[in-house]
C-alpha cells in the first residue's frame, strides 16, 4: 500500500501516467532544420546534421531495394583531431 501511495504521488507530481507504448524506434519523418544562434551549438548541430544526412541516405538506400547495397563499414581518417573546441565554461 505504501508503494502504491508513493507511486501515485510521483505520478501526480509529474502530472501524468507513463505512455502505454513501450519505447520503439522507427525513424521519424524527416524534420526541417531548426534555427539557432549560438556558434558552439551551431557547430555541434552542423556536425550532427552531416551524420544525420548520411545515416538517412543509408537507410533510404537500404529500403529502396538497390541491387548493390553500400557496405556497412565507414571510412575513418588517420588524422587524430586535436582542434580546440569552443569552451562554454570560460570562467573556470
Amino acid at each position: 500500500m505504501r508503494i502504491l501511495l508513493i507511486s501515485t504521488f510521483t505520478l501526480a507530481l509529474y502530472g501524468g501516467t507513463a505512455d502505454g507504448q513501450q519505447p520503439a524506434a522507427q525513424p521519424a519523418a524527416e524534420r526541417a532544420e531548426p534555427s539557432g544562434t549560438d556558434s558552439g551549438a551551431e557547430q555541434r548541430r552542423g556536425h550532427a546534421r552531416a551524420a544525420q544526412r548520411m545515416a538517412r541516405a543509408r537507410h533510404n538506400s537500404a529500403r529502396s531495394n538497390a541491387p548493390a547495397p553500400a557496405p556497412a563499414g565507414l571510412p575513418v581518417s588517420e588524422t587524430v583531431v586535436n582542434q580546440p573546441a569552443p569552451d562554454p565554461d570560460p570562467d573556470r
Partner: protein
Amino acid sequence: MRLLIACCLFIVTAVTPARADSDARPVDHFTLQQAADYSKQVERELAERGAYIALVFRSGRNRNDLPDGVRYTHGAFWIYGPVTEADGSQGHGYAVYNLYHGQTDPTTSYLAQDWPLDFMRGDAIGEVGVIIPSEEMQIRLLDVVASDQYDALHQADYSLLSNPADLRYQNCTEFLLDVVAAGAWLTDDRARIKINLDAYFPPTQLRLGWWERLTAGWFDPRIRLDDQGNGPVNIASFSSISDFMLTFDLADESFEIQADHSD
C-alpha cells in the same frame, strides 16, 4: 580516539572527490600517443560497424574505486562526420558530445563537443564500454542532437548520483539516457520522459549505508541525494542503459573495447 580516526579514514576513502569522473580535465594516465592510438582504435571499431552515432563510456578511476555495478565514470555520444585533415582536405571521423560538470562550480553542468583524444585522456583503465544503437534509433538520436531538443533536454543542476526517474538533477549518463528516451518516445518533454523511464527503465542500484548517505555530500558537493528515496540509490550506468536499449530493440549490440597498448 582510534575510533574517531578510523571513522575519518573511512569517510575520506569512501567519498574522496575524484578527477575525471565527468569533467573536461584530462587524467593522462597513459601517454598522449597511447591515448591517441586508443582513440583511433575505438573510432575504427565503431566505423567498421557502420555506427553514425554510438554511446561510449570511460572510467577516470580504477575499477576498485567504483561501487559495485558501476564500470565507468563518464559517457558521451560519439558522432561520425566530416573532420579536417592536416593538409586541409576533408576526411571523416568521430566527434564527442559530452555533458561535463563545471570545475569552479561542480554542481552545475554544461554541454560541450570535443574529440576522441580528449575523451581518452580521461581514461584511467584502458577499456571503454560501447552501445551501438539500432539503425533506426541512430537516425532518431541524430534528429535529437541536430535539433534544439538536445539543449532542451539538459538539466544544468548536477549530481554525481542523479536519479534517472527524477527531474531535479542530471549527470552525463542520465543525459545520455534522456536523449535516448527522447528519441524512443519522440518527445523532449522531460517530465514525460521521467514518467516513462520510471515505468520502463530499471536503474542501476547502489546500496549506501546511512552514514555514507549522511556524509557523502560533505566531502563531495557533486553528491546530492535529495532526488533519491530511502532505499537503494538509483542511477543510470553503462550496464543499465545497455540492458534497457537491448531489451527494447533500441540497440544492436553492446560490448567493451580494451586498449591495444602493445605497440
